[in-house]
């Protein structure tokens, strides 16, 4: 359905951004394979990025609802 497609697009966008940010932070000099420390950095980064996304969502939605900010302005 349309709703499911939207949710999928949203999840995909989240993964894309997360891969981009965590690769930038954790794999600074790409070598012949992902090292153990790069992998553990990536695991942590994934958890943190998801948490960050949740903090941002909650804060943003609460504020928009409180002030009835038009989404075009915000």
């Amino acid at each position, binding site marked *: 359905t349309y709703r499911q497609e939207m949710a999928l697009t949203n999840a995909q966008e989240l993964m894309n951004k997360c891969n981009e940010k965590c690769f930038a*932070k*954790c794999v600074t000099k790409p070598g012949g394979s992902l090292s153990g420390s790069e992998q553990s950095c990536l695991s942590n980064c994934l958890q943190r990025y998801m948490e960050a996304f949740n903090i*941002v969502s909650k804060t943003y939605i609460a504020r928009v609802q409180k002030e009835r*900010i038009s989404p075009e302005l*915000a």
Partner: protein
Amino acid sequence: MADQFDEATRKELANFVQAEQAQAHLTAQIHSLTSMCWDKCITSNPSSRFARGEESCLANCVERFLDTSLYMVKQIQEQRDRAQLSR
């Protein structure tokens, strides 16, 4: 095309499209704010929890960015008002 639908259906359809667009805009904003506030606030190497101050920085980043948007709009309106007064 529009002739195919009666008035009520057309209104319902327009409301649906508008609500979906608002939802898509909201989602896009959240992705973009997460990306921007991540770069501003997360400076330590990712570990098993956030470093001191990173979580509050993320929430403040969102709030202050919205403050900034509202402040900028107010500035522009004031400027326009001054320009009209001085005519």
